[in-house]
């Protein structure tokens, strides 16, 4: 019973149509949330006692950093599913994630640098969190580079899946680096279990922003997923109706 939906998700025509239907929903809701977060974060939220208006960078820095980790995790999980159960749709999902994850890792690094300069006085320090986030960018680029080096899409899928899975060790390193080592980077202000250390009027736009970015990612990845699924379907009959001009 529970496996039915799993098998359906593995069916290319089903996932193609589902993705097409979900994208506008995710996209528009994300747009509303992000605009709301933008207004709330830039206008409504009060300036910080120590960091003045500069703290508002967190409304883009934190969600993009969160995305960089979350996307890699999903990419590795999809790659593992594709490798173990030989499901093409899973490989398509992993491929769809990579460019989005890479670009937002870069954004997280850049916004982090622009936040770090006024706050710590330096654009870059080789502290554990920044270094491991930089390594995450290299992992994404290596993944994309490995994919590109194969002519055969199936070989590319399977080889890059191994790389994605091996690289997953970096994700907990990035996340826990602020706890394990003395880091210049701020520790977690948000906690699933404990009390948040950030004031509520500043917290709301952050939560809106994170949710908005997550839905935005879903909308974009589903578009890429449809493209990747098409690339992996050769003579399938269902394509005819879908791509008819």
């Amino acid at each position, binding site marked *: 019973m529970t496996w039915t939906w799993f098998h359906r998700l593995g069916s290319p025509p089903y996932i193609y149509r589902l993705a097409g239907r979900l994208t506008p929903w995710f996209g528009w809701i994300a747009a509303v949330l992000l605009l709301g977060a933008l207004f709330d974060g830039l206008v409504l939220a009060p300036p910080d006692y120590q960091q003045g208006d500069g703290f508002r960078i967190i409304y883009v820095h934190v969600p*993009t950093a969160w995305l960089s980790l979350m996307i890699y995790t999903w990419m590795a999980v999809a790659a593992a599913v594709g490798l173990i159960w030989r499901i093409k749709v899973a490989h398509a999902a992993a491929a769809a994630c990579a460019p*989005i994850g890479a*670009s937002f890792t870069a954004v997280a690094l850049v916004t982090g640098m622009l936040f770090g300069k006024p706050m710590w006085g330096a654009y870059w320090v080789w502290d554990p969190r920044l270094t491991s986030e930089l390594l995450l960018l290299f992992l994404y680029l290596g993944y994309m580079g490995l994919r590109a080096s194969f002519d055969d899409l199936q070989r590319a899928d399977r080889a890059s899946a191994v790389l994605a899975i091996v690289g997953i060790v970096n994700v907990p390193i990035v996340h826990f680096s602020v706890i394990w080592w003395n880091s210049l980077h701020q520790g977690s202000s948000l906690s699933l279990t404990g009390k948040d250390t950030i004031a509520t009027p500043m917290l709301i736009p952050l939560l809106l922003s994170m949710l908005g970015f997550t839905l935005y990612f879903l909308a974009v990845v589903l578009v890429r997923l449809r493209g990747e699924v098409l690339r992996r379907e050769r003579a399938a009959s269902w394509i005819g109706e879908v791509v008819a001009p």
Partner: protein
Amino acid sequence: MSHFFAMGGYARYLWPSYGVTLLAVVANIIWARGLLRRAKTEARRRLDMQGESP
């Protein structure tokens, strides 16, 4: 209004941050749609070629 853009002196860090983020947001949308469009064209071409061969 200019007070808003000044952002308490942090403007030259804050606005580029938001700008870079916006750039990535827009670029990913364009890139994704381009990928889908090219995949559809490629699929159409493959089907046409198969339709022609007996």
